[in-house]
């Protein structure tokens, strides 16, 4: 039976048993911030959040990741690979928009001839436990981006909060496997499943923010030199908030730390920084904020559609809430979709 | 900076201005004055040449203490090098201490070319302070 019920009070017990076999990552509250951390006991986790500031992408694609270490000696160079840990992991409390972002990130890291083992290894070893959204935020527009507050894409086991308890729905066999590890979980009654369905419909109706991406990719192809770009970038200060907090942004830089004995690390990078495309000769194909803002929008809503078949915005609203100058991506997409030649 | 296994010995980076403090250190040496061998000297044209990055980078690289020494106000070969530096050092010292770097990690002094003995005492005093503080941890990058 793929539907189970879990009392809220039993969450710590579940986590305890999970940590015996898995490395468990879950949302943890530290003063005003909720972020995904490794937890060892049940009472550390906090599920009363709308969504975390930093997306869970950092569990698979950390801000700083060691690729390998090197030692330069008289007799030559020794390289020691730094592979992703092989241990099985559970990532719990992921909202549906973020779970869907993993499916999109998989496309980037596994497409083409070269596979990014660091990311893919962690993804392969991790079971995703989603947390459905009963109360989406006003800045959420996942329904316009092909997602939904109870979306199952990228989720192995979905938790849906009913008052006082959680309904567990196994979406994939991996989710089923996880449930079977806890025989004490009771099967869900019909009433619970019905209630969850109604909550789902309420949540979807609660999302009033609608953005149409219909025809946006095609229009963007013809809008590269449109004067509109001169206007919309003006208030942007070019920081990395929108890209670092975006669940589907995965651009990175590679650099060495340490001279004779050190490590090659990969760190998050942003297309909003002038250094992103600054060439050794001093030439920069994207010299000002206009080109960089255009790149972010073209990439999210056009280039990825051509390369991977769908847009990379999951409608989580983080870039809207956290932009220091309240630059709203919904406004930009609206301008594009209503653009006439 | 691997600290010695046996008894830890502080390593101190000393920025000495070429015209006064460096000459003072020379005088201390010529006059056979004894002072602890823990400092490593970086000779700079003037205390005004010392960029706060040098001091912060030294702390990051694991130096246990930093000594910055220049000419007394009014003696500067470049007239106002030390005077401009004095304000810079004041802000830097207050900021570092405010951030939580132990006072005594970063030390400043004026030593003229004739004050060999003062130089020796300043070094002794700095080494004692740093010895008391123990090996550097804060801001050190592993």
């Amino acid at each position: 039976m793929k539907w189970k019920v879990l009392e809220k009070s039993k969450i710590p017990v579940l986590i305890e048993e999970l940590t015996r076999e898995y490395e468990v990552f879950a949302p943890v509250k530290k003063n005003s911030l909720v972020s995904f951390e490794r937890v060892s006991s049940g009472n550390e986790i906090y599920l009363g959040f709308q969504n975390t500031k930093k997306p869970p992408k950092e569990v698979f694609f950390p801000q700083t990741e060691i690729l390998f270490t090197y030692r330069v000696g008289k007799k030559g160079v020794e390289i020691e690979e730094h592979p992703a840990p092989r241990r099985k992991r559970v990532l719990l409390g992921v909202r549906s928009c973020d779970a869907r972002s993993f499916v999109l990130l998989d496309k980037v890291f596994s497409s083409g001839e070269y596979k990014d083992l660091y990311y893919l290894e962690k993804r392969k070893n991790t079971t995703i436990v989603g947390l459905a959204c009963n109360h989406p935020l006003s800045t959420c527009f996942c329904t316009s981006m092909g997602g939904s507050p109870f979306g199952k894409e990228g989720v192995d086991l979905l938790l849906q909060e009913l008052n006082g308890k959680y309904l567990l729905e196994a979406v994939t066999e991996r989710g089923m496997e996880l449930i079977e590890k806890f025989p004490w979980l009771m099967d869900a009654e019909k009433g619970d499943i019905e209630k969850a369905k109604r909550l789902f419909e309420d949540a979807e109706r609660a999302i009033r923010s609608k953005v149409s991406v219909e025809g946006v990719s095609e229009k963007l192809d013809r809008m590269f030199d449109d004067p509109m770009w001169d206007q919309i970038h003006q208030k942007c200060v070019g920081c990395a908030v929108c890209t670092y907090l975006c669940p589907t942004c995965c651009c990175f830089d590679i650099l060495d730390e340490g001279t004779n004995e050190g490590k090659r690390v990969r760190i998050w990078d942003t297309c909003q920084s002038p250094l992103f495309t600054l060439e050794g000769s001093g030439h920069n194909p994207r010299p000002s904020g206009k080109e960089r803002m255009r790149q972010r929008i073209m990439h999210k809503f056009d280039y990825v559609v051509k390369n991977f078949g769908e847009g990379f915005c999951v409608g989580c609203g983080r870039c809207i809430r956290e932009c220091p100058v309240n630059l709203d991506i919904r406004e930009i997409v609206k301008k594009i979709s209503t653009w006439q030649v | 900076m691997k600290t010695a296994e046996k008894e830890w010995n502080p390593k101190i980076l000393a920025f000495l201005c070429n015209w006064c403090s460096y000459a003072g250190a020379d005088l201390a040496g010529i006059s056979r004055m004894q002072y602890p061998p823990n400092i490593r000297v970086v000779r700079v044209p003037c205390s005004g040449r010392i960029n706060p990055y040098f001091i912060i980078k030294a702390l990051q690289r694991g130096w246990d203490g930093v000594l910055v020494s220049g000419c007394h106000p009014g003696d500067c070969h470049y007239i106002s090098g030390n005077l401009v530096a004095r304000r810079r050092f004041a802000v830097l010292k207050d900021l570092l201490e405010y951030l939580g770097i132990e006072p005594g990690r970063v030390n400043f002094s004026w030593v003229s070319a004739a004050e060999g003995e003062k130089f020796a005492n300043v070094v002794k005093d700095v080494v004692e302070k740093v010895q008391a503080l123990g090996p550097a941890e804060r801001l050190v990058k592993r």
Partner: protein
Amino acid sequence: MENLESSIRDIARKLLSDKKVDLIIGYEQGTLPLRTTPCFVDKVEDVQKLVWNASCDANLSKYLVDRKEKVGVVAKGCDARSIAVCIVEKQIPRENVVIIGVPCLGVIDRKKVEAKLGGKEVLESIVEGEQIRVKGEGFEFVLPKKDFLCDSCLTCRHRNPPIYDVFVGEKVPETPEVNEFAEVSDLESKSVEERWAHFKEELSKCIRCYACRNVCPLCYCKMCFVDQTMPAWFGKTNDLSDTMIYHIVRAFHVAGRCVDCGACSRACPMDINLRELVKKTEKIMKERYDYESGLSLEEVPPLGEFKMDDSQEFIK
């Protein structure tokens, strides 16, 4: 507030139609409650977009550096002071900017409102005099505005812009007696270990997005010290030592220049109280050199000059 808004619009309309400026930079309604967003008006008919309320928190002087055209900018007390600092530092030609000075009684700190509501989302907010009415899913509260102002505004002693070309409305009473450095003194009273633990914990949240640097009007370097590669002074990863050094050196670079507009703390997505660091540099300047930045166009930045009797108690 309403008449301030309408007079800002009138002034903007006049400046644009008289061709005194090519562009007006002001605030327009944001897309979220308690938010406004910078707006660039170059046509007279768009002047209606300009608003003025207690959420006009952005420091618009950031947009003046490297601008070729003549610009009119709406400026609160702190904004006008940071424009003055940029003018003194030759980054903004004085004749290129028309400062529309607006007296300010403090801007709302949305993070304080969010903290008070414990995660419940504000869907709508209206400022009525000294009250903020916030509405959301199943709640409606009225909050006293004075308890939710930005920290910078609580210690502000220059509510009226000291430098301006056009002044909007009447001057508001100043509060010179406010203890400007209360928070800093409180931190100073703690032990070195406590302070280190405090800053280490705060700054470990930093994700190096540089929003604090990019919204600061005084951070206009062409190549910031963290971006330099030859030599690479400090690391670019979010290693704790490199991150803390980035923040100390940035505070050092705004020493004697920062006007405490609070833009850095407001911009930080990780809710780090960056103001604690830069406010300390302001205290140092006050105590050691009796200097307050951005009050006149003739001042010389303190780190750019010296006096024979400068304090040197720390130099042995």
